[in-house]
């Protein structure tokens, strides 16, 4: 699996404008690039110094020029992956990048797996776990706001919050262990009340971190949003309006069995991921015909529902069914086609729902600003100074830590002795170490000696 072979991939997001980069890493990366790159100064890449840029052409094996490019060489170990790395910077769009990529593959590289550069960097000791994950997030950052968050991560902001929590657990555990290992030394007693306070504090910190994870997730993965409503209520018009601008980023997700297209809309910095846009766009699609059925299945996956009602028509039986479906769901109600004569009013809908109601027209653009603000408000004001938990893995660890702290509290409330409290605290400490890359036992022992005057 972790072989010495050379990997290659397009390392800029598909569809992004500007420069596209193809990155190679591995023992033969310079040799591979040399086969398809022809420097203007006629030098072979093998003879070019590390960390220098060389201008030249990428040519295919028939000698035809594919693109004019800049090639950057970073020799091991002073590179991102600690291996020989070559970056080919192309001006071309997606097609040209694909061509260059396939030339590198023909020249002896292997297509990199998702995240493999980062994995190699990590395995070669270049990045710690936290950094490696933040790098992956940068790659996946959907909007510039999200990019900001990801960069904060790299500087270790989240790490510091988790480390602070770990430090508190460590302190408490060291206190317990000092009492156990040095029973005749003057270590102050730990009352049940104080123990419970400290565990409660730790639980509050975890809760914050996990809330923060949920919010960070929105910025990383997009706010999963379902647009629902009966046929011809204006779902595809809304989608077209929202995506018919440079705000939309369309991403292909290869490897999935269905040819799903996720569309991301940037609403004032909030990446909104519209679920099942294919279903909406394809007007002939059966799915669009059976609006209620489809709505039912969509709302389960959604963090936010945009429920559309045609203001130019009276509410139908289907509309009432949809109103039922969105009860107790996080929903914004949109009254569409307000450029047409009004048949149902805001007041009328208000009687049927607690959700916020906005009148829109995709023809005139009316209500679109309000919709944008409503979504932003829904997500909440984002404090970029705050950092986010990045991955499901970390969130999963935090959930487990939470469980251990809760168990420790239960043991305490059940009147069990401090040794039993220490079991769960120790597990919590070890788990947090999986995020920060620190061990537990030695740290506890060091802490005991640093904190308490031991020495009978």
């Amino acid at each position, binding site marked *: *699996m*972790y072989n*010495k072979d050379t990997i290659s991939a397009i390392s800029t997001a598909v569809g992004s404008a500007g420069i596209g980069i193809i990155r190679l890493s591995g023992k033969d990366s310079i040799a591979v690039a040399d086969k398809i790159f022809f420097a203007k100064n006629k030098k072979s890449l093998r003879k070019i110094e590390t960390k220098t840029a060389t201008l030249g052409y990428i040519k295919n094996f028939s000698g035809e020029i594919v693109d004019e490019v800049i090639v950057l060489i970073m020799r091991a170990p002073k590179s991102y992956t600690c291996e020989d790395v070559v970056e080919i910077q192309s001006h071309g769009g997606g097609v040209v990048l694909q061509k260059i990529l396939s030339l590198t593959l023909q020249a002896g590289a292997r297509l990199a797996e998702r995240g493999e550069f980062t994995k190699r960097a*990590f*395995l*070669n*000791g270049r990045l710690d776990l936290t950094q490696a994950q933040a790098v992956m997030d940068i790659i996946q950052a959907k909007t510039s706001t999200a990019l900001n968050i990801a960069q904060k991560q790299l500087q270790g902001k989240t790490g510091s919050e988790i480390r602070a929590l770990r430090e508190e657990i460590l302190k408490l555990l060291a206190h317990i*262990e000092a*009492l*156990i*290992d*040095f*029973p*005749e*030394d*003057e270590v102050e007693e730990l009352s049940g009340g104080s123990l419970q306070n400290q565990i409660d504090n730790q639980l509050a910190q975890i809760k914050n971190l996990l809330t923060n994870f949920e919010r960070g997730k929105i910025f990383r993965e997009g706010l999963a949003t379902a647009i629902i409503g009966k046929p011809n209520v204006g779902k595809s018009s809304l989608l077209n309006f929202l995506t018919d601008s440079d705000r939309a980023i369309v991403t292909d997700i290869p490897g999935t069995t269905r040819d799903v297209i996720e569309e991301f809309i940037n609403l004032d910095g909030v990446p909104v991921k519209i679920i099942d846009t294919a279903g909406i766009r394809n007007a002939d699609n059966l799915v669009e015909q059976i609006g209620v059925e489809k709505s039912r299945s969509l709302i389960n996956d959604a963090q936010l529902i945009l429920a559309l009602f045609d203001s130019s028509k009276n509410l139908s039986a289907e509309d009432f069914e949809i109103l039922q479906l969105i009860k107790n769901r996080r929903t914004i109600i949109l009254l569409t086609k307000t450029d047409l004569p009004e048949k149902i009013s805001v007041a009328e809908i208000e009687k049927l729902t607690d959700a916020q109601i906005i009148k829109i027209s995709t023809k005139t653009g009316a209500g679109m600003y309000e919709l944008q603000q409503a979504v932003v408000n829904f997500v909440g004001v984002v404090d970029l100074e705050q950092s986010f938990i990045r991955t499901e893995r970390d969130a999963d660890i935090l959930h487990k830590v939470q469980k251990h702290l809760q168990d420790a509290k239960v043991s305490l409330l*059940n*009147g*069990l*002795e*401090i*040794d*039993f409290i220490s*079991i769960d605290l*120790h597990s919590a400490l070890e788990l947090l170490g*999986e995020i920060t*890359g620190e*061990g537990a*036992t*030695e740290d*506890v*022992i060091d802490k*005991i*000696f640093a904190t308490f*005057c*031991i*020495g*009978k």
Partner: protein
Amino acid sequence: MESNFVVDKYDVIVIGAGHAGIEAALAAARRGCKTLLTTLSLENLAMMPCNPSIGGPAKGHLVRELDALGGEMGIAADQTCIQFRTLNTGKGVAVQALRAQADKKIYQAYMKNICENTANLDVKQILVEELLIEDSQVVGVRGEQGETFLTKTAILAAGTYLNGAIIIGENSYAGGPNGQRAAVKLTDSLLKNNIELRRFKTGTPARVDGRTLDFSKMQVQHGDASPLRFSFLTAEPVLNKVDCYLTYTNERTHEIIKKNLHRAPMANGLIKGVGPRYCPSIESKIITFPDKERHQLFIEPEGLNTQEFYVQGMSTSLPADVQIEFLRTIAGLENVQIMRYGYAIEYDCINPLQLKPTLELKNISGLFSAGQTNGTSGYEEAAAQGLIAGINAAAFVKQESALILKRSESYIGVLIDDLVTKGTNEPYRMMTSRAEYRLLLRQDNADLRLTPYAIQLGLATPERKKIFQRKQSQIQLATKKLQEIKITPNNQLNDSLENLKIGAINNTMQLAELLRRPNVKYKTLQKIFDLPEIDDDSVAQVEIDLFYSGYIEKQAELVEKFDRLESQILPLDIDYSEIKNLSLEAREKLAKIQPHSLGQASRISGVNPADISVLMIWLNQHK
């Protein structure tokens, strides 16, 4: 005597007759090996040069384990100790530990008698100066008179005697503890054979004259009313014969010490060795914790037939005049006379990373090492290693497989694994916090965990075997019965349950369920149910297993996970430099330590989880 005269030929020669050497020699001899125990003074077998006590948290656990494996320390302590206390009651069943005050002389006499009367074992006063090694294999030892003993294996258990130096204030001289000689030339022999040595230090407080102490100014500490015992074999109750006393330093004490700090060996540069953090000198305590207004001191008798008292907590290497001055500031010690000064001792020890988990040196076949020579401190730590070294030296001679205890089954396993995997930068002391599965490693179940090994190795006497098997079958019987008896709620039953303060039941359940309730005891259940009559020790096991089952299962799951890595054996001939995906640091550390399993590899500092993934993949590829 003629130089290089060959005196005799042995299977196992043990160098040093302290706590490690004695257990090593006894284990090897009891396993049928012709064994020689050497010491530089027959007066000082099993000497306790520091505190007059055995046991305490983790250390007491070690003694119980040692006993379960057929070692001698537990029996000797039960026979000769003069005060017994259980520590950590109320902190959890697993961390409760017995600590006893020893009568040093009686303890030594007991051990000397045992050693001199053990079959296959010779005890001789010989200062070993040289290891005889041919082709990286130990073949003999040579004493200072030029006498040579040939052997198949040797066990280094030289304690603090290796190139020992005593330091008191501005004075320093070569020597071992309590005015004994040091073993100077043996150090050269070790260095010559490419054994890496380091310099550690430790210290001890003054011994004072009991006739000059005013005990009325101190708090008295009695022994327990009905004390526990160290050995699973001790049937008779052990007796408390003495008290200990508690007093405190004060600001005047601290002033005197501060005023004279420039005369302390750590300040004047006489001490270069690394001392233990858990056993700091009084001068270190005052420097490190300047805000502490007083430090507690325990005044402990050194024995029944002596006026010497040990001033626990006052370890020092300040000059003699300063020692007298500061001791006399302490309540109850105003007129104290010092009988022996406190001192620091520096000594050579080996870097334990050179050892296999069997305690054999990696680079010299048949040479084992145990105790303070391996960088540990403490009588119990030494004895535990001695036993394992003795068992494995015998295994080497008999060409049987070695005994490597796992971290998940014993403190001894934790101790040795820590030493050979992580090494140590200070004299290593056992602590319960070093054991990740300590709920399973209780002093009450040490026999259930380890006595089967003793039986297998031939170290269990018939008596031990009988006691063990009886306990085992009682536990099985009671547990089975508790599961078999199903109880169904009815008025009559609930009335009697209420009467016994057990509480009524609402559903049909196994009787075992009741024992999971707080404050329900086996003996109480016996009053209304037909449960077998079993010994108290067995009752304790049954109750602990049921009442703490949730926690025990939790740890058992962790152990299962741990064992998965532990059981993946790494071949000794791996060329780690060939596995390129390993980090550079991991590659170096793995090559140096040569872990025997993936589990051990995962505990080496500098080997990260990614390296373990790489190794795991590599192992799979090379199966």
